């Protein structure tokens, strides 16, 4: 099935137009002949266009990350005296239908632009959480109330100071949005109190010691109170918006009055290019300087080219590649069968074949490379003999795996998975599904015994909150033991950072041994650029150039 239904739909619409148009032209033979001659070309073009959009909406910061980092982190100190000036041209996926409304946009380009125009309360920079517009974000003793204090001297591009009212309005926008409503559900914004211009007190609906990482760390862009003129955004960030055209790009210029560390580059030019191969072409022909997100095959093609560089980010920018076994459905309601699957797969073979070697091995837990990851658990090694014994003892000789290319490679990985299971004496039938509508039928996703899946690599706290436990809205493995639920609630309410990290590691150990999540790899995000662009960081998996300079 895969994308065929979509193709059929596209072709169907094209055909509907074509058929009706044919009836319009009453001029006999020659026109019919021409119609037929041109039709194959038209339908071929429509059907061949699979969706880079779906593929790439992935690294968007919707799925930002959390971890458990110091709640009072401060801005990273940057060395002084870097070459100032210059223009950087960055290509990323953008759509003509996108917007610069932080609560509504889905475009990677738009997110990156927003992070440069607007400051956030908290940024997730690499694996760290860094306070930006907030001087401090502190909980009370039992994490039922948080106090946000803003930095002094921050001003919007129109000269107005940034105040607590702006923060309350901005967080309210996010809380009301479909994309972030879920993560802001614990925050009782209606009950918040503006103490003074720089101080906001927000009560929680349930104790949340991890508010900074799990909620603000996902997205906390601040816009002026009451602002709605998206496309002419006014922020307080290091760059000002000069112009924005959805699908085409955005032009940003340095904010000379920036309250924080002054940015070095004069101009950032964002260019919308939908196709990853085209982004790489544009980089090769010198039309851009930085291509955000290229394919592993594309990266391999420029390996020997000294005029270009590739950058791999394996922390918060990477994808979790895995299979999800539903613990509530046979045969995976038997823990031995789950264990057998984990032992039978050849993770390195999957990485080499499906990801062209571009991946780090997974150990059946999320969040590798991020705070709270449990490094002390030994890596699961392949053991086909034990797996075969476990399958035989459980009487399992076949099951079905559902797979759709939600990101490229899921179907391939499922097929290779089937071959590997065959070596352990189990026949796996791969049932391909349509990627565009995969999540439309929620009931099917939740009742499928086994499916290929990907996740953005978020910090453990955020991942577990959404994807595990009885409160997880997308817990498709059904892992929700009372011990795990209690442990998760306890971890979320823990105010002390070190204690919370310790509890996170314990929860990950439970996931590793008991959950139906089989993580075989972490696939890094690959970006490419010309040489000499220094100090680019990744914010919520978007490239961030506020402290970048050209060498």
């Amino acid at each position, binding site marked *: 099935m895969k994308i065929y*239904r*979509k193709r059929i*739909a*596209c072709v169907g*619409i094209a055909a*509907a*137009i*074509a058929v*009706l*148009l044919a009836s*319009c*032209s*009453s*001029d006999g033979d*020659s*026109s019919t*002949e*021409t*119609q037929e*001659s*041109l039709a194959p070309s*038209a339908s071929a*073009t429509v059907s*061949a*266009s699979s969706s*880079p*959009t*779906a593929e790439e909406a992935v690294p968007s910061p919707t799925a930002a990350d959390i971890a458990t980092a110091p709640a009072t982190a401060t801005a990273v100190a940057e060395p002084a005296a870097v070459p100032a000036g210059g223009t950087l041209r960055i290509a990323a996926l953008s*759509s*003509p*239908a996108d917007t610069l409304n932080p609560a509504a946009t889905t475009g990677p380009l738009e997110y990156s632009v927003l992070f440069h125009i607007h400051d956030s309360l908290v940024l997730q920079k690499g694996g760290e959480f860094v306070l930006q517009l907030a001087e401090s974000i502190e909980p009370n003793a039992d994490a039922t109330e948080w106090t946000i204090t803003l930095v002094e001297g921050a001003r919007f591009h129109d000269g107005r100071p940034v105040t607590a009212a702006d923060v309350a309005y901005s967080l309210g926008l996010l809380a009301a949005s*479909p994309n972030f*409503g*879920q993560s802001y559900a614990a925050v009782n914004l209606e009950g918040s109190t503006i103490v003074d211009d720089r101080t906001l007190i927000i009560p929680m609906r349930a104790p949340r010691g991890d508010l900074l990482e799990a909620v603000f760390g996902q997205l906390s862009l601040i816009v002026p109170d009451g602002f709605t003129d998206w496309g002419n955004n006014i922020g307080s960030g290091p760059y000002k918006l000069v*112009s924005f*055209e*959805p*699908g*085409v790009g*955005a*032009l940003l210029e340095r904010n000379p009055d920036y309250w924080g560390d002054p940015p070095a580059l004069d101009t950032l*030019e964002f*260019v*919308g*290019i*939908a196709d990853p191969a*085209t982004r790489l*072409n*544009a980089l*090769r*022909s*010198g*039309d851009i300087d930085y291509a955000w997100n290229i394919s592993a095959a594309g990266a391999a093609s420029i390996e020997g080219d000294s005029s270009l560089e590739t950058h791999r980010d394996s922390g918060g920018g990477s994808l979790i590649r895995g299979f999800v076994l539903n613990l509530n459905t046979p045969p995976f309601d038997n823990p031995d069968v789950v264990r057998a699957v984990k032992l039978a797969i050849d993770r390195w073979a999957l990485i080499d074949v499906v990801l062209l070697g571009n991946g780090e091995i997974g150990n059946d837990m999320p969040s590798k490379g991020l705070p709270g990851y449990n490094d002390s658990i030994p890596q699961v090694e392949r053991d086909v003999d034990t797996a075969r014994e476990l399958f035989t003892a459980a009487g399992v000789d076949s099951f079905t795996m559902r797979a759709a290319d939600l990101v490229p490679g899921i179907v391939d990985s499922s097929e290779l998975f089937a071959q590997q299971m065959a070596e352990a004496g189990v026949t796996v039938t791969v049932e391909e599904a*349509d990627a*565009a*509508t995969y*999540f*439309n039928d*929620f009931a099917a996703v939740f009742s499928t015994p086994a499916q290929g899946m990907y996740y953005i690599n978020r910090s453990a706290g955020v991942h577990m909150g959404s994807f595990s436990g009885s409160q997880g809205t*997308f817990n498709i493995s059904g892992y929700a033991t009372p011990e795990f639920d209690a442990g998760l609630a306890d971890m979320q309410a823990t105010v002390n950072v070190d204690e919370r990290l310790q509890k996170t590691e314990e929860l990950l150990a439970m996931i590793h041994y008991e959950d139906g999540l089989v993580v075989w790899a972490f696939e890094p995000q690959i970006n490419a650029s010309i040489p000499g662009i220094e100090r680019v960081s990744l914010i919520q998996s978007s490239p961030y150039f506020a402290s970048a300079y050209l060498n």
Partner: protein
Amino acid sequence: MPIILRLLSRLAISLALLLAVSIAVFASVEILPGDPATTILGRNASPDRVEALREQLGLESSPVVRYWDWLKSMAQGDLGLQATGNRSVWSTVSTPLRNTAILAVVAFATTSLAAVGGGLIAGRRPGNRADRALSIGTLSIVAMPEFVIAGLLISLFAFRLDWVSSVSLVPLGGTPLDTPSTLILPVATITLVAGSYGLRLVRALVAEASSQPFVEAARLAGVRETTVLRRHLLPSVAAPTAQVLAFSVPYLIGGTVIVEQVFAYPGLGSLLVEQIERRDVTVVEAIAMIMTTTVIAGFLIADLLGVLTTRHTPRSSSRPSAALP
């Protein structure tokens, strides 16, 4: 029938056709699995959240009611708001439309030139060396997928020779005409594809006309070849050729998705595909209406040309294929 009456009846038919297309397109998007709410929510699409968002986006009412609302605002010249947000459809569609129009106009000119010029050269003396070369050349191009042609052009002209850019980036706030060189490769690709189709069809028309008795008679009478071409061949193939060219319009307006993707050209074709994926029926309808109107207009013009040419050159037929035994 007087031309004016014929034109009026055609206009009436065209309006009915637009209506029929709009219903077909609306229904097609409706029967696709999923809707804007589920595509926006993705993995967050738990049933209660889907319901809440549907309500927010006004998707609760029946498709008939929504179609009727759309039709009413359309009749007043209002394309409405995007189904997936509260942005106006016109603001989403206008820039890609302009870009596609620019590409289409330029490509139409070059395609016509290639199709007519090549068709005349090849069809004038069927079987000669030029004919065989052009026929084999166009057949090879027609057999090649567009992205291969585009890829070959890029690797040759952008990477190897470094004459032009590999992408057609439109400057912010500007138009593709601000950097005309970026149009070269997309136009070349489209011309090769559509021009090859057109050339083959025009060649067939010219070859047929070339063997007509009145053309042969003129040649036997010692009339100069350029005169034969101008006075006899060209008029007799003008109308069907215009139709051939008119038939390339749907391709130029909507079929250039691959070309747009390969060259990152921000046009209407990629927008259409993307919006079908997002199930945004109002944007899809707007694009479908624009494309259909353009195509109908193309056919009307072709028909009109046919009528006019037939009246002024009574000796020849506007349908050479029908005149053959």
